């Protein structure tokens, strides 16, 4: 299983990243992509930008551990996770999680699994900029609950 994990300040092209996963391959039958985009509001307040802080070294390691766990649970043929840091304005892409498999079920489940853990375990913090100043985004209980649903015995690996 080939995995690409990248943290970067620069914007990236979601279509090009996704296309790169299937180039010269005919074994992949499904690619699921999740794209996280900066909204113009946070809890009803209009925002000018988000600034993402991260823990270099640990962020890559933590994402890699969850990608590895996903590939132990589901039969994956490729995973690509790209997460930006620094200042990001509304409408810009923050994160891409793309999973490839021979069939859709594994790709859907693995993308959801990786995303849920990215939200709650990957060391990133969002600072919101509004006209009133800046404030740290608070962690959401529903994100924690979403990650918890994957705990417990992993399912049997999908048939080939």
């Amino acid at each position, binding site marked *: 299983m080939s995995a690409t994990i990248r943290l970067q300040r620069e914007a990236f092209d979601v279509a090009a990243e996704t296309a790169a996963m299937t180039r010269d391959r005919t074994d992949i039958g499904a690619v699921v992509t999740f794209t996280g985009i900066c909204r113009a509001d946070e809890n009803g307040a209009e925002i000018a930008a988000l600034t993402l802080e991260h823990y270099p070294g640990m962020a890559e390691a933590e994402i890699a551990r969850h990608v590895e766990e996903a590939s132990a649970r589901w039969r994956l043929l490729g995973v690509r996770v790209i*997460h930006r840091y620094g200042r990001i304005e509304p409408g810009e892409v923050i994160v891409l999680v793309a999973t490839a498999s021979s069939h859709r079920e594994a790709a859907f489940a693995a993308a959801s699994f990786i995303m849920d853990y*990215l939200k709650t375990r*990957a060391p*990133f*913090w969002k600072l919101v900029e509004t006209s009133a100043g800046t404030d740290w985004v608070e*962690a959401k209980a529903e994100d924690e609950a979403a990650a918890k649903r994957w705990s417990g015995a992993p399912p049997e690996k999908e048939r080939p």
Partner: protein
Amino acid sequence: MKLLYFAWVRERLGKAEERLDPPASVATVDELMTWLAGRDEQYAHAFENAKVIRAAIDHRHVRPDAPIAGAREIAFFPPMTGG
């Protein structure tokens, strides 16, 4: 050992990292936070709500009762909000 701080923990302390050697009686992450909080008012403010602060030792999440012996790098930060 090297200590790292992120997000509002970093802001409250006014620094992102430092090197400190706590006394041998400080054995766990929880005890380290209590020791740090006792250093001065700025540390006390940063660690006043220690229950919400998360920790990582050498790039892995740990619980408050994790031993710190042998740790190269310990990080303190609020709950994560990436993705």
